[in-house]
């Protein structure tokens, strides 16, 4: 599945109401580590249909960033049934992100 760009208008539909788990990637264009992470997330997304990955630009979507207390990026937040179940801040290798998704 491809990464879905999410803003405050489609956040509820894509994340909160999603039937499958959602990994939300909070990022910004000026953030080098975020840009490094993106191709890794693209790869993970293309390998899985059992969850989806969404991208949220914190400069455009500061309301969402504030609502979810994102104050350092890259920040990955995992949602299940609309609730946050885990998060990870900073650049992480692919295997750690897969563990985060496979865990619990």
């Amino acid at each position: 599945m491809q990464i879905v760009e999410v803003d405050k208008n489609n956040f509820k539909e894509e994340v909160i109401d999603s039937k499958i788990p959602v990994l939300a990637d909070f990022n910004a264009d000026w953030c080098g580590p975020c840009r490094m992470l993106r191709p890794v997330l693209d790869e993970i997304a293309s390998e899985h249909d059992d969850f989806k990955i969404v991208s949220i630009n914190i400069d455009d979507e500061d309301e969402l960033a504030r609502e979810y207390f994102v104050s350092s990026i890259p920040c990955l937040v995992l949602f299940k049934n609309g609730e946050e179940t885990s998060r990870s801040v900073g650049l992480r290798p692919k295997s750690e992100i897969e563990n985060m998704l496979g865990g619990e």
Partner: protein
Amino acid sequence: MYDIIIIGAGPAGLTSAIYARRAMKKVLVLEKLSYGGQIINTLSIENYPASPNISGFDFATRLYNQAKDLGAEVKFEEVLKIGDGDIKKVVTSKNTYEAKSIILATGSQNRKLGLENEDSFISKGISYCATCDGAFYKGKDVAVVGGGNTALEDALYLSDIVNTVYLIHRRDEFRGEEASVNKLKLKENVKFIFNSNVTKLIGKDKLEKAEITTNNGDKSTILIDGLFIAIGRIPFNDSFKDIVNIDQNGYIIATEDCHTNIPGIFVAGDVRSKEVRQLVTAASDGAIAATEAIKFINNE
């Protein structure tokens, strides 16, 4: 079996890969996180020869593509251990590889203060590199934490750019060179805060204030836009310190020729014992280490 295994895909490791591939050697680069190393964290590099004003991300990506296009193999695996011998072994989180020679290019990381919200203020007031980020604080008030040469040099450097520099040190004497201390004392806009530690970082979207606590427990607050943390670096040496010699700060000992104490094992970049840790010296080491490794292989 590889000719050269390079550990770390930062500027030093990737430059080694370029040189080794241009000599047609079979090269594997192992990286635990992402290519580029520390430099991906900076918005703009201003001091790399002939490339003014390039972002850290672009620098890293161009370097990575250059090495890949020349045929370097890169795998994203963390190296856990290396073994010496005529054939050298490299154990990663996933596999064991063999090579005729190894280049260690694992770099170093900043020592943090260890405050709760430190990470969240990185690039929003917290910096670990005055020469990289100082220019963003022109005319503002900043503080430097530390007592070694880096802290003194950072404070001197910043004093020419910013409005006020507070230099915060946990003792009443500096470890760094006296000449720098004397220069700092002549600067009107440098204020010393001795026997004190930064104990809290305060700010909404970015750093606004820092709480200072003296060794007696007295607390005060300073208003600052930037806090430069210069309390040392930690080299990544865990996987090799049993094999190669390291100095008292953990850096792998080698002179400009990049030879470690073990024949066939070379070291390049920030993880090497040296004075100047910059991109240009990392690239320089990379070229030298690769050239020495090639010589070593050809003589075997």
